């Protein structure tokens, strides 16, 4: 069995060695005028292959429960189902970094194949920049987080995977998220390469856009999966908690989304080059920062597999090197293009795009400050603080209003200058949206004014995108779809927030909770033995108005590691989710019951899917506008 670990380890070392021929031939090829040396591609492929073998080696060690491997010992157990043995491979620090490395190699290889008709030296430079990152991660992996460390004597049983990670959504969440995170490395490398060669152009943008889109789609889906998981597994009944670990994935997403819009402008109008470069650099830097914050143990969460200052220090210094290189490249090589057409009128597509870019940068700074400030304060004054959701809500929500309105306006306007009298319908729609919103919100809410305006703005975007679907013949379908998805997203969140309600109570078996509106009856509790846990299922009957609902939340007592998790029971319909969780306190007869009604929950997930679907369609369409 140990053979798999050995294979994994040696192919990892060999993989690192492959960087030398790649760099050597790249530099040699850079100077002469021939076409791209196929050796570069071959050795890159070899490197990718070796990393894949290494990764497979780790997977096999997990599958066969080889506890002489430290990573396996710490994160696996013989009683786990095969599926979770496999997903346990990336459910830990070492394995997930190996996955990072794999994706890094995969992307540069695909890049090499797919960029055939681009400038030779640009391709080579991208490879070189990417190799810097790859080597950094190889060393990081081998030096501080080797997934193939030995344990001697071989333990007979492992410690097991954290039970809340034993979940289908979370099994695919890391790989998807990583494809997004690490995809930004290609964005970083090729943006630097293009800057160095002064190659930034429309052709380049068309090619570059694909990478931005791919990373963006994966990042979006990755965050979505994480949210869905948090919603049903953590049992808090929400999907976003402004937890630092969540913020860390939101920041690159915001940068990437802004970048996506800038690249589209670059492709059409050859402006915003500095935006594109700076955002490419920041996206990757933020991804790295995220890895640093999460891995160094500075932030505490389920993602902090093991805190180790040495690791944090390594990533931090590596990050500084990368930032230094990119600043150097940007300031030395970037020449702002004199031909750039900077003049455009106030009433144009450019204006609304720029305004929204700035708003997104503002969102990004808010999230950044909220995430970093507690760490900063801890370091300078050792005061422990936390920044809660109110901070983010207060600073972000008001700016969503102009954001949504400009999002609706932008696509309706022309480049450079639009005529106002052609656009009367825009105002007409705005009035309709606010009136509708007034009547929707009127019946429910306390903070009436802000909700009306918010719902109104989101509804405005909603109506305008729908009008485009129906009316315009030549529309940019993918963009319109994503914007439509976004309006749906905001609308669902708002309505979800306004209309949600919950009941928290402590009940003993057989007891009933009652108020004017509903009745919760705790009918019985049953015990089931499963493969690696014991399940206690509660049977609840909920009577609300005339409807009756049976819900069965669960408590799972895992044997290894010994952890209790609660599994929410959720009845999902198109209009609302009914959500119940049950918790226990040792030696108490009472169970802590939380029952929530969450309207439009399903639509939050669907709308994010629509947003990313827009991105996917964008990949397949090359002519637009």
């Amino acid at each position, binding site marked *: 069995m140990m053979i798999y670990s050995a294979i994994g380890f040696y192919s990892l070392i060999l993989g690192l060695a492959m960087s030398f021929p790649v760099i050597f031939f790249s530099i040699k090829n850079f100077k002469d005028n021939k076409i791209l040396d196929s050796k570069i591609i071959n050795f890159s492929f070899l490197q990718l292959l070796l990393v894949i073998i290494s990764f497979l080696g780790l997977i096999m060690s997990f599958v066969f429960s080889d506890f002489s491997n430290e990573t396996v010992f710490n994160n696996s157990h013989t009683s786990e189902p095969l599926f979770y043995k496999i997903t346990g491979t990336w459910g830990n620090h070492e394995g997930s970094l190996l996955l990072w490395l794999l994706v890094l190699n995969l992307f540069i290889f695909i890049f090499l194949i797919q960029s055939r008709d681009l400038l030779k030296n640009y391709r080579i430079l991208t490879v070189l920049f990417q190799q810097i990152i790859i080597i950094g991660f190889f060393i990081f992996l081998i030096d501080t987080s080797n997934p193939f460390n030995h344990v001697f004597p071989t333990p007979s049983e492992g410690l097991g995977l954290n039970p809340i990670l034993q979940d289908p959504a979370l099994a695919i969440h890391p790989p998807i998220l990583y494809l997004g995170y690490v995809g930004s490395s290609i964005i970083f490398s090729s943006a630097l390469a293009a800057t160095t060669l002064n190659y930034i152009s429309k052709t380049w943008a068309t090619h570059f856009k694909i990478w931005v889109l791919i990373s963006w789609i994966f990042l979006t889906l990755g965050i979505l999966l994480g949210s869905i998981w948090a919603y049903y597994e953590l049992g808090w009944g929400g999907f976003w908690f402004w937890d630092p670990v969540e913020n860390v994935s939101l920041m690159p997403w915001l940068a990437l989304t802004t970048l996506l819009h800038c690249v589209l402008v670059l492709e059409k109008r050859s402006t915003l080059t500095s935006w594109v470069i700076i955002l490419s650099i920041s996206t990757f830097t933020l991804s790295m920062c995220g890895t640093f914050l999460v891995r160094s143990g500075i932030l505490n969460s*389920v993602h902090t597999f093991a805190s180790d200052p040495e690791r944090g220090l390594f990533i931090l210094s590596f990050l500084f090197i990368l930032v230094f290189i990119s600043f150097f490249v940007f300031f030395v090589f970037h020449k702002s293009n004199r031909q750039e057409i900077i003049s455009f009128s106030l009433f144009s597509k450019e204006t609304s795009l720029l305004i929204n870019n700035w708003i997104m940068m503002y969102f990004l700074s808010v999230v950044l400050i909220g995430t970093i400030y507690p760490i900063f304060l801890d370091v300078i004054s050792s005061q422990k*603080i936390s*920044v809660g959701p109110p901070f983010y809500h207060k600073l972000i929500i008001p700016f969503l209003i102009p954001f949504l309105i400009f999002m609706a306006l932008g696509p309706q306007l022309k480049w450079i200058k639009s005529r106002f009298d052609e656009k009367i319908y825009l105002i007409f729609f705005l009035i309709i949206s606010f009136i509708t919103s007034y009547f929707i919100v009127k019946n429910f809410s306390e903070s009436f004014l802000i909700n009306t305006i918010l719902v109104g703005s989101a509804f405005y975007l909603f109506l305008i995108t729908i009008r485009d679907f129906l009316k315009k013949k030549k529309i940019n379908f993918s963009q319109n779809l994503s914007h439509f998805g976004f309006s749906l997203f905001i609308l669902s969140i708002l309505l979800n927030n306004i209309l949600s309600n919950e009941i928290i*109570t*402590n009940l003993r078996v057989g007891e009933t909770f009652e108020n004017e509106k509903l009745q919760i009856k705790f009918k019985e509790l049953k015990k089931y033995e499963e493969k690696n846990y014991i399940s206690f299922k509660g049977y609840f009957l909920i009577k609300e108005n005339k409807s009756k609902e049976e819900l069965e939340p669960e408590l799972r007592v895992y044997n290894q590691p010994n952890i209790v998790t609660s599994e929410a029971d959720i009845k999902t319909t198109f209009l609302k989710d009914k959500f119940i*969780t049950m918790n226990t306190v040792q030696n108490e007869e009472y169970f*802590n019951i939380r029952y929530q009604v969450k309207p439009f929950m399903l639509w939050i997930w669907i709308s994010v899917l629509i947003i990313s679907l827009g991105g996917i369609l964008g990949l397949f369409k090359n002519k637009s506008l």
Partner: protein
Amino acid sequence: MYGRKVKLRFFFILLVLSVLILSVFLVLKSLEENVVYFKSPSEVKMIKELNDKKIRIGGMVKKESVEMLKNEINFIITDLKNEIKVTYSGVIPNLFSEGKGVVAEGFLKDRNFFQASKILAKHDENYMPPEVKASLKEK
């Protein structure tokens, strides 16, 4: 005196600057309002003036102090030097149990009594809030 373009640019810069200053001000202001400080029971005892700001208290759930009722739960948070009584009604995380680390968020009624509005869920049985670890280590 100056051309139209120069004036325009001047106003543009002025606008950008004022927006920038305004947003920095906004961010700092709401940061100040929404920050939640973390204290150990001993630190709570040393607070000179009680105010109605939300705080977090971290420590260990004292053994045999948990008392669960129909609509609330009472327990004692201790850092082995000092302790504080906590009343709470709401969701109780799975890993809440006697002798384990806990972080409660809420308002101080007085130096011995805390009304919690949230108990923080932790995901890992080995996990202990670093603040708790630090305040326990001092012993």
